[in-house]
């Protein structure tokens, strides 16, 4: 059983690193769901099926959907944005990049 736990933890860690490092926000979202899915399998192994079901339904499904809708609403829904240009666009819109010299930024207030 321990090798299974080890495998799941490694997958979860890899997915968590992918969340931080992926420039494509939709891909990062999918990776976050993978972390949640691994966690729910861990809950099953720890014999907490109730918590596992909650984690699978809320952590993997619902929060992923809510965040995906948020991406769509912010206009960051890009399926094949791997270039650094798309990442820069995302950072500009989320207000993470250094500002705001372009007048366009105003228009996207939600």
């Amino acid at each position, binding site marked *: 059983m321990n090798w299974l736990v080890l495998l799941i933890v490694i997958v979860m860690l890899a997915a968590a690193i992918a969340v931080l490092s992926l420039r494509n926000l939709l891909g990062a979202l999918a990776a976050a769901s993978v972390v949640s899915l691994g966690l729910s399998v861990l809950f099953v192994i720890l014999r907490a099926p109730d918590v*596992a*079901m*909650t984690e699978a*339904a809320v952590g993997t499904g619902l929060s992923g*959907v809510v965040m995906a*809708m948020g991406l769509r*609403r912010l*206009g960051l829904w890009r399926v094949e944005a791997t270039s650094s240009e798309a990442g820069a666009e995302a950072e500009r819109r989320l207000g993470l990049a250094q500002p705001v010299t372009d007048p366009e930024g105003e228009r996207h207030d939600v």
Partner: protein
Amino acid sequence: MYRVTSLLFAVGLTVLLFALVSHLDFGHAPMVVGESVNRLAAEQTGAANFVTAVVLGYRGIDTLGELAILFAAATAAGLVLGHKRSENSRREADGGAILIYGADLFFPLLLVVGLYIILHGHLTPGGGFQGGVILAAAFFVPVLARPGGGLNHRALSIVEGLAGASFIVIGLWGLWGGGEFLQPMLDKGTLGELVSAGTLPLLYLAVGLKVGAELAGLLTTIAETEANE
């Protein structure tokens, strides 16, 4: 800079967690309350799923608090998300053949699974919250497939209000008949039967309908108030 701070935060959290669990064996935590619950729950509440016995029988008022928090969060999100788009800017394309047929296929399946999980919450793992989320998904997938359709928000809020009110009414019934708020009432029946554990399945049905209606309404609101690109 913010990456460095979040990394520091994650490292700190890991150290704290490690300090907490380093002297515990994996999977063999000391279970003082748990052992008492395991010994007494079946006899006292009649529920085969002891998690349900704790969530609704011993700690029902906490569940009421959880419902209140969820209600406040959904209401606040609905307020922040603002008004719907005007009708003529809402001409979105359908979700495509795969999503439409998938939605038609999954809607009854998710409905049955959600209701099963809610109604068997006192017997098998699961219950009102998990089944409610699945019900919300069942009603949200068709909205994704056909964006013009939408859900009837008035009906959703009626279901949600009735379910929340019936949870409190069952609690008051326990107060009147058993002496304590949310005291389990009715006959406990045979352990493991579908109709057993008194009022606990009724409470879970109320929780499931409330959570499902609330989350379906919230998801639909998010989808309907999207900004145009």
